[in-house]
């Protein structure tokens, strides 16, 4: 049969954002694929060259509305590295707590979206419902539901609100019971298993060479997590473990994210136990020195890295963002080849696309 190219996107229910997947098909089988991005390119890196360092914090929130806390954290971490700022210990623990809450919220949004991709509408409604609990917690900390503007260079904006620990631990207890329920819904669905198991195979060597990071890499059985591998904040003082799964398919990526949500609950409990009293923010200089710095973190979607060049003024000379999904999506052709067109939503959904950070 003749081969032909099909455009899936920029308007397509599978895309979860504004991008285009071109697939070359032979009948129903995918023989080649080509992701096309750039529809959302805002010139973020150029834009911030015109802004003062503190003004960029709310902009970095907008890199990904699903995980905005971790992006503004990465930005602040990079500038602290550039300016040589030491963050108070209590602020580091608060950061870990809100980052893990953000990770759970992000993974829940992914779980909900994956449910709709694969026809599990109950899973969508349930996961979105529980995500709201975590957004409420983050709102009580920062005042905003999604773009928080809470991280500051040299700490966090304010201390935790009264009774936050109680509310947070109650939510976690409730959520862990609900997580068992989701596993019954998802793992108990034969359709879900048929559509994810042995689909979207990505072997570990390819995953490493193509720069894939995050749950997609750990779903290929590679035990790498920057929180442990290149520890930042106080992750090295907490007792936790990396979640991996050896299957290398869409189901493995689903499993890794489910386990990570449990692990995040565990990390938050540990952090509350060890959290000291003290200040949450230090004063930082207005101008950055003439040098370069970079920092990297484990975003909910993979490795985030920012590289900044300071030129002695109050604005960055250059700020480069390494977005995890930008690299992961360049590796999807290898996951798609050989599968059917009907498998595309399952494979692309398992990557957890976010176009705001991809296009910047």
């Amino acid at each position: 049969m003749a081969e032909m190219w099909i455009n899936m996107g920029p308007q397509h229910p599978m895309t979860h954002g504004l991008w285009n997947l071109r697939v070359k098909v032979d009948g129903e089988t995918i023989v080649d694929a080509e992701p096309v991005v750039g529809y959302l390119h805002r010139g973020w890196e150029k834009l911030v060259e015109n802004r003062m360092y503190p003004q960029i914090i709310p902009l970095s929130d907008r890199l990904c509305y699903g995980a905005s806390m971790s992006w503004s954290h990465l930005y602040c971490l990079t500038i602290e590295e550039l300016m040589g700022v030491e963050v108070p210990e209590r602020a580091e623990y608060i950061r870990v707590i809100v980052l893990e809450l953000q990770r759970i919220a992000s993974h829940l949004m992914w779980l909900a979206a994956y449910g709709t991709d694969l026809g599990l509408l109950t899973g969508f409604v349930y996961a979105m419902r529980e995500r709201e609990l975590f957004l409420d917690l983050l709102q009580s900390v920062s005042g905003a539901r999604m773009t928080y503007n809470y991280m500051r260079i040299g700490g966090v904006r304010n201390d935790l609100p009264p009774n936050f620990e109680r509310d947070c631990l109650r939510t976690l207890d409730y959520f862990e019971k609900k997580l068992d329920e989701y596993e019954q819904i998802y793992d108990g669905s034969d359709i879900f298993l048929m559509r994810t198991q042995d689909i979207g195979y990505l072997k570990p060597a390819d995953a490493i060479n193509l720069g894939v990071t995050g749950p997609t890499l750990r779903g290929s059985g590679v035990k790498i997590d920057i929180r442990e591998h290149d520890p930042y904040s106080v992750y090295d003082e907490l007792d936790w473990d990396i979640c991996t799964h050896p299957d290398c398919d869409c189901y493995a990526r689903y499993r890794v994210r489910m386990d990570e949500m449990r692990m995040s609950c565990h990390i938050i409990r540990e952090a509350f136990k060890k959290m000291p009293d003290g200040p949450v923010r230090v004063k930082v200089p207005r101008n950055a020195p003439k040098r370069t710095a970079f920092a990297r973190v484990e975003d909910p979607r993979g490795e985030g890295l920012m590289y900044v060049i300071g030129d002695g003024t109050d604005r960055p000379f250059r700020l480069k963002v390494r977005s995890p999904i930008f690299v992961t999506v360049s590796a999807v052709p290898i996951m798609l080849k050989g599968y059917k067109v009907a498998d595309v939503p399952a494979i692309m959904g398992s990557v957890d696309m976010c176009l705001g950070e991809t296009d910047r």
Partner: protein
Amino acid sequence: MNSTGGLETSGSTEEAIVDAVRKTFPDGVTIGGIAPRRIFARADRAIIYKLCEFLKNELKFDHVSCVTGVDRIDRFQVVYHLSSYENRCVLEITVDIPHDDPEIDSVTPLWGGANWHEREAYDMFGIRFKNHPRLERIFLPEDTQYFPFRKDFKLGRQ
């Protein structure tokens, strides 16, 4: 994990990597500094492919975190952040390239992860990567006539 990835050393992993690089590339590589899990270096553009090949095959730098283009006004720079999962170390390599001849060897044949980063650097700065499998614009339309992240491309308010 305290593995040094097969390196014979009595000092830290970072020092062992620096020693190995210095021994193989006596000219062309300058080590700017070492910090825990961080190495900063500068390299000549003529040896960048050979250096990266050595780093990948002998020193187990198996992951490209980032390839950055920079416009320093009098010159361009390409900054590589390479990381090693086994040695737990990030190596930053800065390479200067002249403004009137922005060309450098591509490292995409070594690491597929560098592919889109190099395309982005080409798209935004016009830096050409030799032997790149497909050096085309990635964010902007094909017929764009300018490179918007260059410093001589001004925004409205500047």
